[in-house]
């Protein structure tokens, strides 16, 4: 059971309260009609699927209901940080240093 910190409720709660919402920081093309098929593919389907620290979205479904972002190591499943959706993408090197 993962324990996940909701940055809005400021509480650390069991995984069962949350739903996973895929990779984070994927921006929808600003001008969809000018985008090529390959760029649509990248936006819709291509994922980093990284083995290691992964930037991802979670939703506090059975709580405040809000989406937030997280960095989780996909090998150990340990969370390095969770942060609000409008916070800037945290730099990985600083996160790794902090978690040492």
């Amino acid at each position, binding site marked *: *059971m*993962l324990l996940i910190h909701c940055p809005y409720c400021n509480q650390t709660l*069991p*995984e*069962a309260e949350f*739903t*996973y919402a*895929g990779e984070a920081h994927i921006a929808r093309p600003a001008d969809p009609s000018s985008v090529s*098929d*390959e760029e*649509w*593919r*990248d936006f*819709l*389907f*291509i*994922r980093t*699927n990284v*083995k290691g620290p*992964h930037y*991802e979205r979670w939703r506090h479904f059975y709580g405040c209901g809000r989406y937030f972002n997280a960095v*989780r190591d*996909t*090998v*150990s*499943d340990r969370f390095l940080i969770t942060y609000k959706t409008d916070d800037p993408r945290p730099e990985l090197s600083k996160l790794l240093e902090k978690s040492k």
Partner: protein
Amino acid sequence: MTHFSALSLIKNALSGQKNWEPQWPDSEPKAEYDVIIVGAGGHGLGAAYYLAKEHGITNVAVIDKGWLGGGNTGRNTTIIRSNYLYDESAKLYDHALDLWDGLSQELNYNVMYSQRGVLMLAHNVHDVQSFQRHVHANRLNGVDNVWLSAEEAKEYCPPLDISPTARYPVVGAALQRRAGTARHDAVAWGYARGAAARGVDIIQNCPVTAIRRGPDGRVTGVETAKGFIGAKKVAVSAAGHTSVVMDTAGVRMPLESYPLQALVSEPIKPIFPCVVMSNSVHAYISQSDKGELVIGSGTDQYTSYSQRGGLPLIEHTVAAICEIFPIFNRMRMLRKWGGIVDVTPDRSAILGKTPVPGLYVNCGWGTGGFKATPGAAHTLAWTVAKDDPHPANAPFTLERFSTGRLIDEAAAAAVAH
């Protein structure tokens, strides 16, 4: 290679079982191969076997970071079926089913393929409509699948509770009689033995760290823990780690890797004659020849490479089994494990060529790769040997994610492949 027969069993029994030879040697890599296959699971070993047997390409190595058959091949719930909705899937999975028939004889190795039937339970109107649509689509494609009333389902699978007061009443079921189970380890071992006998090198405990390309973009070989190994062609069949390996060749994949868990109970006397799946309640169950109930359901909700998965999903799975089969609610579970499955956006596999010349990929089987083993292996070998796909795997391209020609089994099945 020893040929297994009644005579060889008797001879070896009389000599105290001391004269059996190893079934395949643990090879050291040569400097160069015609074909390197990354991943020694059933799919990869099978592809090596068919390359050697049907295409005469024997200068082949199968390389794995662990031991052969130690990934998803040894971690699945061994279910085999082909009752998929879309024409493309029905053709590919039925191609596999045709090869499962007679695989033990072909390999001279008992893969314990048992056509005990897969029963998919319908609990509500939506299930009935969806499964009957499957039954009709399958019939048009020549895939056997029949609709049973609740009473007929009960007759086929006596432990089933069809009382109308059940928590999830059974209102009918779809049955594929040709479907069933096989011994998963034996499939990998049988293919390994057959491939090695034809000259294929099986290199275990040797992680492939990168795919190397020449100045013209063509594949030149792979970087491994035992150094560089040259290859004219490389086929990646690495399940959950496919996107990691492909990334080193500069190919980004539409894949996400999730843990898929399974568990077995303590062994009991034979009680369960077939495979039962319930998509609505979300679990599936069968009984192994050792007597354990083999149970599984869907993936964990988050991507991971941990080969472990979380306990909430196990609780959900066991709860579903107890709801459908109250008779099992006091059984003890023996062990649980996880494998890492690579899931595509449309829940159909990717099997074919890549933008890199000489590089082929077989991946995206998600939660249902075991049943496809002979079909995937056979068509991958064909694609590598001829540099052109077999008709059965031709629609399963990587390009479909930019052309939009998806094979949307995700919408057709949604759960429990």
